[in-house]
């Protein structure tokens, strides 16, 4: 008997329940209610975000697959395509950091190889609370170990990513994982259930009770009882997934199957109904045939389980035996549990009785769509106003503190736990502006980066959204790659709060404008709402994953200075902008002010100049100026230099010295060039209409910055390097 409490427990409103009854013409069975509850959850249905996501540009000449499939696909020429996507695993990672993060990796990898692509790269964007708190360290330790455990075992390199720390993530850490795979253009597979009578095969791990209601959990706020939700988190088995990867790619390569879909969120429910809905067919399955690892499971539990490392395939009838032979080779089950049917219904039998018989269209496509009320948050009235702090007396001390602030400090403690070199394609090590991979047998290479400064977004959602796109593209330009496509992970609070919805709307507007300006299509992504704990929302945190191409990988550039005596040139313009800076936050505990302004046309011109100069071999190093400003960027160029070469820089801009060296004005790249190439670079800058100014030279073992002739920074590279290097490991060595 389905009563109000049962409906509420399934996170459905009474109106939604009424719609279900109307759509299926009767009261649902408990299993059917469970199915609707999952598929109509925010996580699976995008019911609050759909109307806004439509504003993102999705078309482009390279787009093979835009949003709506497991992952987006772009043509990269030479008969090859890249398949990529970003996903969040925030809620499970708070409850059980290791398994939550590990299964996040498992899920995103299945999204990639389910389309026929072999995953070649992982990146992750992480947000934690301040590391002074033991609980936050434990979460970070667990998340990093979980990613490491799963990705390393699978043999997929984790080649880059980003990490920020802020107290808004203390009880709601963010774990966003990005994966990219490579596939022959004629070898792409989709989630299709075509050919009435074709067998539906269940492959991979056995089904248990783990992860029941995972998607529903990710669609509600957390309260004090969150810890009790631990059984909702799945447990990962990367070894099983590695076998699944090889077996799936083998049956696809041999052309034995019609369609394939992974069983991620909402497991068997989602895979059966989505495959059928996409093909206008139905699916009938018999749950007695589903491999199970626990006894006495109900149809409700089997349909809703989120056990990991499972896939659903539709094979050509005549190939059934051959498919099973391939899976047996990899020691995996491949069981025919049903068939494709006519009539568009999902029918589920259990012990001779019908447990489910509903139209797939109702489950997949007819979920209500909401245009939720939105209201500009009150905090924005005062957020932009702030009294600038007094001018610092000692910029050296500030730079040393800034470089050691966890958001800026070296992340080697994290990435040395990730196998970042397996598959032998990694040309740049993690920590560079963007990850760079060669493609075996090709001259060109692939670059990718993740970006998202949530403080900017908090202070001005629209500008913050634009900057996220702009900075990601700038990162690619720094290594010499042109952006070709975007995926995004939009982490927000509860969308039922009008303020959160307003932030969401604004961020989408900003991102859409920037993507249009750079002519890059959004090929998919993920929305994670309900990032609230005990009523407090996280800062709005869009994370952009941008993929780029470099025509000649041997021309790629790293951030490190190459030798003393080169000329340092600043592309772009210094402005007096302190708002939203890491300087204000880390030194003065001030999260105020307008974030840096951005002019997308100027930004684009700076990228064009950098790309042109890299392809002509004019520049020897390039590094984006971001958190911590010019001073931090210069220091990082030294850290990346093999000989730890320093710099002597003279600035004459008529702005506050702290804004000059620590401000985060956008559209700036610091490059080093041989003396002999300087005039060619400056000429090119003139032609492209970009301000490019010689600001100094690479030199010795010190970083020295003078402003209008007055020395404001003078520090040995070595002391800065040590402060930068030690910060995070030291935090973790505290007992």
């Amino acid at each position, binding site marked *: 008997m389905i009563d109000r409490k049962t409906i509420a427990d399934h996170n459905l409103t009474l109106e939604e329940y009424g719609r279900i009854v109307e759509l299926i013409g009767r009261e649902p069975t408990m299993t059917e209610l469970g199915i609707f509850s999952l598929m109509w959850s925010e996580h699976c249905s995008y019911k609050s975000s759909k109307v806004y996501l439509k504003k993102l540009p999705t078309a482009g000449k390279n787009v093979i697959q835009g949003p709506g499939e497991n992952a987006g696909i772009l043509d990269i020429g030479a008969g090859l395509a890249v398949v990529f996507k970003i996903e969040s695993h925030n809620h499970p990672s708070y409850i059980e950091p290791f398994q939550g993060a590990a299964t996040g990796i498992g899920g995103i990898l299945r999204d990639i190889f389910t389309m026929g692509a072999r995953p070649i790269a992982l990146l992750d964007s992480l947000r934690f609370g301040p590391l002074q708190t033991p609980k936050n360290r434990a979460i970070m330790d667990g998340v990093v*170990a979980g990613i*490491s*455990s799963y990705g*390393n*075992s*699978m*043999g997929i390199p984790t080649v880059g990513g980003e990490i920020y720390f802020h107290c808004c993530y203390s009880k709601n850490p963010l774990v966003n994982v990005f994966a990219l795979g490579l596939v022959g253009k004629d070898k792409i597979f989709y989630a299709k259930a075509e050919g009435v009578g074709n067998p539906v095969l269940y492959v991979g791990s056995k089904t248990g009770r783990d992860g029941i209601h995972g998607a529903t959990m990710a669609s509600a706020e957390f309260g004090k009882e969150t810890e009790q939700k631990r059984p909702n988190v799945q447990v990962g*088995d*990367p*070894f*099983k997934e*590695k*076998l699944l990867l090889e077996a799936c790619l083998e049956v696809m390569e041999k052309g034995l199957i019609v369609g394939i879909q992974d069983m991620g969120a909402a497991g068997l429910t989602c895979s059966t109904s989505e495959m059928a809905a996409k093909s206008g067919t139905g699916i009938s399955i018999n749950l007695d045939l589903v491999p199970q690892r626990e006894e006495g499971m109900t149809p409700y539990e089997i349909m809703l389980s989120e056990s990991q490392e499972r896939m659903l395939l539709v094979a050509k009838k005549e190939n059934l035996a051959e498919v099973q032979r391939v899976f047996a*080779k*990899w*020691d995996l089950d491949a069981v025919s549990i049903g068939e494709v049917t006519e009539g568009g219904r999902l029918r589920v039998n259990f012990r001779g009785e019908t447990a489910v018989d509903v139209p797939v269209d109702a489950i997949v496509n007819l979920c209500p769509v909401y245009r939720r009320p939105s209201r500009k948050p009150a905090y924005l009235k005062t957020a932009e106003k702030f009294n600038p702090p007094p001018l610092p007396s000692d910029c050296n001390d500030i730079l040393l503190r800034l470089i050691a602030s966890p958001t800026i400090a070296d992340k*080697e403690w994290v*990435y*040395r*736990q*990730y*196998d*970042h*070199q*397996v*598959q*032998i*394609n*990694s*040309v740049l*090590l993690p920590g560079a502006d963007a990850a760079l991979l*060669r493609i*075996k047998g090709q001259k060109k290479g692939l670059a990718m980066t993740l970006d998202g400064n949530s403080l900017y977004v908090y202070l001005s959602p629209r500008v913050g959204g634009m900057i996220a796109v702009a900075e990601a593209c700038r990162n690619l330009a720094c290594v010499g790659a042109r952006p070709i496509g975007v995926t995004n992970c939009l982490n927000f609070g509860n969308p039922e709060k009008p303020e959160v919805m307003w932030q969401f709307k604004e961020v989408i507007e900003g991102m859409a404008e920037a993507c249009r300006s750079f002519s890059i299509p959004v090929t998919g992504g993920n929305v994670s709402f309900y990032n609230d704990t005990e009523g407090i929302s996280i800062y709005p945190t869009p994370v952009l994953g941008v993929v780029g191409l470099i025509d000649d*990988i*041997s021309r790629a550039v790293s951030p490190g200075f190459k030798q003393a005596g080169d000329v340092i040139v600043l592309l772009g313009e210094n402005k007096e902008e302190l708002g939203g800076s890491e300087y204000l936050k880390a030194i003065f505990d001030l999260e105020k002010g307008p974030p840096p302004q951005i002019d997308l046309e100027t930004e684009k011109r700076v990228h064009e100049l950098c790309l042109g100069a890299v392809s002509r071999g004019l520049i020897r190093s390039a590094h984006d100026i971001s958190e911590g400003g010019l001073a931090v960027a210069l220091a990082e160029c030294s850290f990346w230099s093999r000989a730890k070469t320093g710099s002597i820089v003279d600035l004459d801009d008529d702005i506050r010295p702290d804004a000059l060296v620590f401000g985060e004005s956008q559209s700036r790249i610091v490059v080093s060039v041989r003396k002999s190439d300087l005039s060619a670079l400056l000429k090119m800058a003139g032609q492209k209409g970009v301000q490019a100014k010689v600001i100094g030279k690479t030199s010795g073992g010190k970083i020295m910055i003078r402003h209008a002739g007055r020395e404001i920074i003078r520090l040995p590279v070595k002391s800065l390097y040590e402060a930068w290097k030690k910060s995070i490991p030291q935090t973790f060595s505290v007992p």
Partner: protein
Amino acid sequence: MRFGVVVFPGSNCDSDTFFVLKEVLGQDTTFLWHKDHDLKNVDCIVLPGGFSYGDYLRSGAIAKFSPLMQEVGEFAAKGGTVLGICNGFQVLLELGLLPGAMLRNTNLKFLCEFVHVRVENAQTRFSHKAKPGQVLRIPIAHFDGNYFASSELLRKLEKSNQVVFRYVDENGEATAEANVNGSAANIAGLINKEGNVMGLMPHPERASEALLGSTDGRVIFKSIIEKLEHD
């Protein structure tokens, strides 16, 4: 001559090793499937890196029971050349083809980074193209690379020159700091008494192309190729 790269379920450096041998070094190379008993007439067997059988028990502990390992054992007993890289080294220890055992890294974390190793014995078939004492820059990537041996075994290993590579700093000093995973006597690579079976934790296949930052790993493959081609 012909190389065979063993594929266990969970191997993940098999394709990398194959690529370097075949595409970079131009050698006749084939995969050897763990369930087979056929060594396909290879002259050198490479056990690659990865997580054989998931390594949920001790690393390499299950792989030693693979059907193919019986043949590998016989091949080695007859003097055949066997190279174990990372997980392959762990498998060789489990098989008893090399002495000692692996513990977790002392910091209890997975470690992936470039390290320096010094060539301690440049007279083996795996290292004769290197100079004695030459320092190689090659990446590691493992959780269980902390080599353990009793002090008696260590004495024997040193005496019979079985230590082929040692972790050192960039200046070639075998310091405690350079010993990233805590290995006994900084041991990074080891050969059997007969000189035909070697295991090492660093990944030479990851240091065989300039584009990827180092070509120092090639010297190991080149040593094998030259030695076996001469025989």
